[in-house]
């Protein structure tokens, strides 16, 4: 892999995205605008895949420094694409490509109502900034692109800015992410205090001789900062607001990719700058484990009772980020005890899940987008029967659902298998407390997995199966070809990553430079293997998805053969007929289960968490007789625990203080002069009578 070929590739990518950002501005007609913006975006994303893939294959770090220097020598705009960066660029490219294709069709749903041009160019800027964040090699440029990313995504969130709610969620998003940035900046600047240079190279160089306190400080600051962007509990509150507000293709990018950029930052800090080296660092890993598992649980719990399809998906992002961070935390714990092999395993699991989540969450949001486009609503209680109206969308949404529910044979299962194996390997940690707490943390993960599949039964079942619940769903139409194409790409990625895991595992292994502890896991078509070795017992647990697929296929064939043979005696016919209505006459769509009623048992079981507030209104035929009711209507809403119990009180406190402070501006000139007098005398006393 010749460097010059690289150094032409990166500028080409940048140029393409900039072209995509500027070109639409010259057109007037929405159709042309969307082509002019999304075709370059697609090509650029494809090139990003190429670049990252070639870096991963060539096992070499690619440096590229531009002449631009912000203000000081060490604030130069230089790029450093190692395996880690390349892997996350791969994620970006893999999701951005189908999304750009998808957007070609999706953007037209806005033509006339909003400026397609703005959508197109902002989307380009958004993707470009994410690519550059992963590529950059200095604190200043990192923060620059990081905030550019936040800015672009914010503008996309408030794209439909007539709705007050969108504006509010946009503000929440921007402020939260800015707080996160503040923490990140603090983390980096603490490192700067150590190294005296703003370039990441110096951070890498001094990663070894970082004081324990400094390391902890950097680590925690980074966890909070990047966790905010990644949507880690309890910093996640912006996420379920922002993703539904944004256009669906943007939600796909934000949820699929942008959260991963947050993970990238976390990985960069944990693996490069503040590397865990001694058992003293294990608690940092446990911190991540706890944060991760609670995020997973909280996310999936909220998702399970949500009936807005996009909000539900957003909460699932919280869940999956939780699983990813759980894996990362495990690998930190293992690293700090020097257990290289299982540390690699945990990291593999976490990164694999990042990749998977990027793909299937992108797919799901695209699916939600075409449902939105087809029916004009995001409320599942108004959907139903779409499997017949939009078969392709239904198919791909089902693929995504199976993948995210962690069911074989799709990619979600593989990464969850790895995560569970990593958890099972925690017996090697020579510390009973950690062993037990990790073991108990696995309960949260297991519950999460269970609830996730239940939730996606609801998501897919209610929106695509049974009968239409509204006129809109009745008249839903299939999405245009470009959108189907986008979903096809993502869907096939889901399948490929599921049945051919070695592709991803080898990419990750070369990206993160594992010593080949689980070597067979990276061999083509080889099974994933995890060794077990403790007091006399040795065994190898392995999973070979191609084999499984083969087996499944043959079983299926055998079954069909059996059916053909056994059924040959008498020809059976299949009669369509109305659903059995229990003798009560025709069933209306009102008699079906809705999303809300479907999740009612779960809501009841987890009462302590949701604290649902239910009001029942009864309408009687006569006040004398309360036995015969005309109608009973039940309203039930669950509380946002974090907003009500954590953020609102904090905010109230801050606002109170600020309110007291601003009252200094009394408007009375006497008080103004008094301030001056007091200030003078106070300062005089300070300087005169200070030692």
């Amino acid at each position, binding site marked *: 892999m010749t460097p010059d070929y690289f150094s032409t590739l990166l500028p080409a990518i940048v140029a393409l995205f900039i072209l995509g950002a500027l070109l639409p501005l010259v057109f007037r007609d929405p159709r042309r605008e969307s082509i002019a913006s999304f075709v370059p975006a697609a090509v650029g994303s494809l090139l990003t895949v190429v670049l990252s893939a070639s870096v991963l294959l060539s096992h070499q770090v690619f440096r590229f420094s531009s002449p631009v220097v912000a203000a000081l020598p060490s604030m130069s705009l230089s790029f450093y694409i190692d395996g880690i960066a390349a892997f996350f660029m791969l994620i970006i490219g893999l999701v951005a490509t189908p999304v750009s294709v998808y957007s070609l069709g999706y953007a037209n749903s806005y033509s006339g109502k909003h400026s397609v041009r703005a959508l197109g160019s902002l989307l380009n800027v958004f993707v470009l900034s994410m690519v550059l964040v992963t590529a950059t090699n200095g604190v200043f440029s990192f923060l620059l692109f990081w905030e550019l990313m936040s800015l672009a995504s914010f503008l996309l969130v408030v794209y439909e800015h007539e709705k007050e709610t969108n504006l509010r969620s946009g503000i929440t998003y921007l402020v939260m992410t800015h707080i996160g940035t503040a923490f990140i900046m603090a983390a980096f600047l603490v490192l700067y205090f150590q190294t005296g240079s703003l370039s990441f190279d110096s951070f890498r160089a001094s990663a070894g001789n970082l004081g324990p306190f400094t390391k902890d400080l950097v680590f925690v600051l980074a966890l909070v900062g990047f966790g905010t962007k990644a949507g880690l509990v309890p910093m996640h509150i912006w996420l379920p607001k922002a993703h539904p507000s944004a256009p669906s293709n943007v939600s796909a990018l934000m949820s699929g990719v942008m959260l991963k950029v947050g993970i990238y930052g976390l990985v960069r800090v944990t693996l490069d700058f503040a590397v865990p080296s001694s058992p003293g660092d294990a608690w940092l890993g446990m911190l991540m484990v706890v944060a991760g598992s609670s995020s997973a649980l909280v996310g999936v719990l909220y998702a399970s009772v949500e009936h807005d399809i996009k909000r539900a998906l957003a909460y699932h992002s919280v869940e999956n980020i939780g699983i990813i961070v759980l894996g990362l935390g495990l690998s930190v714990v293992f690293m700090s005890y020097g257990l290289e092999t299982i540390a690699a395993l945990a990291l593999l699991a976490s990164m694999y899940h990042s990749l998977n989540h990027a793909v299937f969450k992108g797919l799901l949001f695209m699916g939600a987008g075409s449902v939105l486009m087809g029916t004009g609503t995001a409320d599942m209680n108004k959907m139903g029967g779409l499997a017949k109206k939009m078969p392709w969308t239904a198919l791909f949404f089902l693929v995504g659902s199976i993948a995210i529910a962690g069911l074989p044979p799709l990619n979600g299962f593989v990464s969850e298998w790895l995560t569970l194996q990593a958890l099972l390997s925690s017996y090697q940690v020579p510390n009973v407390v950690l062993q037990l707490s990790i073991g108990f943390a696995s309960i949260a993960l297991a519950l999460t997995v269970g609830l996730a599949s239940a939730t996606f*039964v609801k998501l897919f079942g209610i929106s695509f199966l049974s009968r239409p619940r509204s006129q809109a769903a009745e008249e839903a139409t299939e999405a245009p070809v470009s959108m189907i194409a986008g979903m096809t790409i993502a869907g096939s990625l889901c399948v490929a990553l599921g049945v051919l895991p070695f592709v991803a595992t080898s990419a990750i292994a070369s990206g993160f430079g594992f010593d080949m502890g689980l070597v067979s896991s990276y061999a083509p078509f080889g099974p994933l293997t995890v060794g077990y070795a403790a007091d006399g017992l040795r065994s190898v647990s392995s999973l070979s998805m191609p084999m499984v697929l083969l087996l499944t296929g043959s079983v299926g064939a055998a079954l069909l053969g059996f059916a053909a043979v056994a059924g040959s005696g008498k020809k059976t016919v299949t009669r369509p007929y*109305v659903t059995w209505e229990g003798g009560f006459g025709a069933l209306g769509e009102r008699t079906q289960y809705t999303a809300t009623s479907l999740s009612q048992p779960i809501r009841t079981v987890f009462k302590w968490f949701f604290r649902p507030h239910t009001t029942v209104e009864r309408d009687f035929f006569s006040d004398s007789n309360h036995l015969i009711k005309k109608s009973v209507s039940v309203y039930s809403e669950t509380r946002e625990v974090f907003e009500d119990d954590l953020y609102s009180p904090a905010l109230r406190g801050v606002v109170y203080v600020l309110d007291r402070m601003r009252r200094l501006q009394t408007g009375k000139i006497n008080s103004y002069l008094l301030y001056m007098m007091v200030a003078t005398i106070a300062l005089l006393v300070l300087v005169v009578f200070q030692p």
Partner: protein
Amino acid sequence: MTSLAADVVSALQVGAVVALAPLLTGIMRKVKARTQKRMGASVFQPYYELSKLWVKDEVVSESTSWIFSSTPWIVAVATVTAAFFVPVFLPFSPFSAAGDLLLVVGLLALARFFTMLAGIDAASAFGGIGTSREMMISSLVEPGLFLTIFVVSLTLGGTNLTSLVVAAAKTGVVIAPSMLFALISLFVIILAETGRLPFDNPATHLELTMVHEAMVLEYSGRSLALLEWSQSTKQLVLLALLVNLFLPLGMPTSIEAGVTMLGLGSVAVLLKVCLLAAVVAYVETRVAKWRLFRVPDLLAVAIAVAMVGMVFFYL
């Protein structure tokens, strides 16, 4: 033995499992009937029903989609595939190299996933009831199940089923305390998974008590046959798994043990499974179905017991 021979053997094993599964169901029904002072139908009744259903016409609700019609096949394939990875009669499955305990759980979960979807698809309230209840139970079963697996794989090493079964066979009769707790929790979980009382009543046709039955209510003919068959296959596989992991008495410690030992082992497994099935059936006559929202308490018990098991292992 050669890999080809191994494959053939395990294919035979799976064939046996699939073939004997309805018999097990029949036995359970019989035991249940007897303990309820009824004669009960013949133990082969399930075979009669299956063969009858197999050749019957189907009535399919017109509000269903392809999910509904494909579900029985997917369920059957998933279940049978799962059976391939489980050493039922022999302490060995050649496919352990391709998939482990977690994969088995995953495949069964896939089957359940589609069953739940099919329950909604027919747009009837019964299916909805079934699915929503199943959603709750299945998601609550998950943690207990995984924690049990955790304890088992800690005690017996890894998640590779063959080596697990072999290790269990090596331990012989004596059972580690952690395993004992795991056994209790796994028993409860299998009751839930296979839809037995007190979680679900396989014999009911009252919408108030139905879970699994409600989901498959709309099915008829060959589809129903497939579903029932897979259900009993799943039941057999899980019971066998429990037996082989926790009550390895008589199971040879290696596939090289010789044909007689293997034969004896297989017979022992069969007997133990039947015994266990009888116990399950007996339990069913003793307990009534629990109110839906008391089910979580039972599952919580399972989780807690498994946690205690883990503590016992580590301390």
